[in-house]
């Protein structure tokens, strides 16, 4: 791997190796493999959100719906054309990419604010959710259907490990590919620079010749593709697809928390956030499963009121304050607090 081309390739390789060896101590435990897989899956959702929301100010609140469209499409294409799901998945990814790109394109053309995009996509999310339940002929309604695609069990038998382990490495491969894409896109391509310029000041970016609509549409497309893959793998992890996997509360709320906990616009924010959130979730599952929803709701409130820049960043700031100065003017958050009324 040549580090010159891709900044941060070395640390990504390190993270990759850590995740490759992570399941080795727990190979026998289906439960821990499941937790690890969910970490990767929500890191993938949050990665998509980081690109489209973090770097592009387009708050997508239909990740669950879009992921569901991806998952159902993969299965339906494979089923109705009698092809392998490995062909169905790219078709689904392309479809979701185009859907997300259209949303971004229309929103950018009409100069939607971040609030408008969030409300528009929330409405789309609810349409998708209803459609999954209503289109019973295609989706099996709320009872769903078994989802054991990609013939992973064959591989698992050949290698002599549980199917869940094979799936884990498959998800890891997609996540690492997504991270490579992220590093290239944001850190080394002209897209990253354009995204930054647009985020700072859309009008100024336009005036120096940046095609704002095009860049936002591209970000939407990439996020759509990643979300379709994450959605398909999420259904595969559950090995049974139902509309309840892809609700707003099950996907979007969690992905948002993951991204904010890990730190928005930080390369490893999605992964760090996913680890923290899934550890909390696993602990709750053992001790307070009934309170899971309530605790995540409370978490959402606290995170947005007090830790907008990420828990990790806040912790770093705190440590820095202790080390360097005691009571000196800390950096604070120089956001655009100046009222423009």
């Amino acid at each position: 791997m040549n580090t010159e081309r891709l900044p941060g390739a070395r640390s990504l390789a390190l993270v990759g190796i850590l995740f490759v060896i992570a399941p080795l101590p727990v190979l026998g435990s289906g439960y821990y493999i499941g937790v690890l897989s969910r970490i990767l899956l929500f890191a993938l959702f949050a990665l998509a959100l980081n690109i489209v929301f973090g770097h592009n100010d387009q708050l997508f609140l239909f990740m669950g719906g879009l992921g569901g469209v991806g998952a159902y499409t993969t299965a339906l294409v494979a089923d109705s054309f009698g092809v392998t799901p490995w062909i169905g998945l790219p078709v689904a990814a392309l479809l979701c990419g185009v859907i997300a790109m259209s949303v971004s394109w229309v929103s950018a053309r009409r100069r939607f604010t971040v609030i408008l995009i969030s409300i528009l996509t929330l409405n789309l999310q609810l349409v998708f959710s209803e459609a999954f339940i209503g289109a019973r002929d295609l989706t099996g309604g709320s009872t769903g259907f078994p989802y054991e695609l990609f013939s992973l069990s064959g591989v698992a038998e050949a290698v002599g490990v549980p199917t869940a382990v094979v799936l884990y490495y498959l998800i890891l491969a997609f996540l690492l590919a997504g991270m490579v894409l992220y590093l290239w896109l944001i850190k080394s391509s002209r897209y990253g620079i354009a995204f930054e310029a647009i985020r700072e000041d859309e009008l100024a970016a336009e005036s120096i010749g940046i095609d704002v609509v095009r860049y936002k549409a591209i970000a939407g497309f990439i996020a759509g593709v990643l979300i379709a893959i994450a959605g398909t793998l999420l259904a595969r992890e559950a090995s049974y697809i139902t509309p309840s996997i892809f609700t707003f509360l099950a996907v979007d709320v969690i992905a948002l928390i993951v991204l904010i906990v890990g730190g928005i616009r930080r390369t490893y924010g999605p992964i760090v956030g996913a680890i923290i959130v899934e550890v909390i979730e696993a602990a709750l599952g053992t001790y307070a499963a009934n309170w899971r929803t309530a605790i995540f709701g409370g978490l959402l409130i606290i995170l947005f009121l007090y830790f907008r820049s990420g828990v990790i960043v806040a912790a770093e700031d705190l440590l820095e304050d202790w080390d360097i100065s005691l009571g000196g003017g800390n950096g604070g958050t120089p956001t655009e607090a100046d009222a423009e009324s």
Partner: protein
Amino acid sequence: MVTVSTLAALAVDGLAFGASLALLGVGITLVYGLGEVLNLAIGAFAVIAAITAALLIDRGMSLPIAILAGLAFVGVFGLLVDRTLLSLVYRSEGEERILLGIFTTLGLTVLLEGVMVNYVSSRYSLPLGISPIDVGATVVTGTSVVSIIVTAVIIAVLFLFLNRTFLGKATRTIFQDERGARLVGIDPRKLRTLVFVLSAVVAGLAGILAAARSNVSVANSFQFTTFALIVSIVGGIRSLVGAVVAGLVLGLINTYANFFVGSYFATIILFGAAIVFLLVRPEVMSS
């Protein structure tokens, strides 16, 4: 074969459903117009009022008192939320505040749902015990008629309050010009509290009427919120009259669609209407 009388009966049911939608729309519009907080927890308020009233009836309270107590409870709860959570949101300004409002109220609705599910997990209904009413050849459900009348009265009172009383006029000045209102000595924060409590009660009434017509469970809270959102998008987020009209029209459309093409498609029509309105007139949502 669909007869005229069936269509008329559907219209009454549609208007009754629309009445609840209108109340939810008014609730979300009042708060957004006054403080730019899009209250995504409004559905939870509706459910809280309905379930409180139902539980009180189980304890032997009479129906009218239980309903009033449910409304009072959600009003006090609204006051609590306003003084704690929203005070934190109002510290920021402009777009930042709108975004913060969306996320904190979203978190609140998830939190409330998660708490309530542990204590009140069944479905609750508030039968008013009104027999069907014969109108010529048609039979309409009495509950629907009562829903329409109660909503009409409450909305009329609300409009009288906003247009005729000093407090109401003061409230409307903030709608139009916050700085101007402050200059003439009106404290926007106090009025925001008043309006938030008012909106919680109005939403609570919507929930109680919904429970009177069929039944309500904790899982309905997010659904009510989305209904409120759709109504406010179609009616224009700052227009109370728009919210009432949009609520009634969408209620009629939904009920007819429900009857002719099925409930899932009817719901999709509602969301579709909201999406079309967002795309055609996005300015209604911007500040």
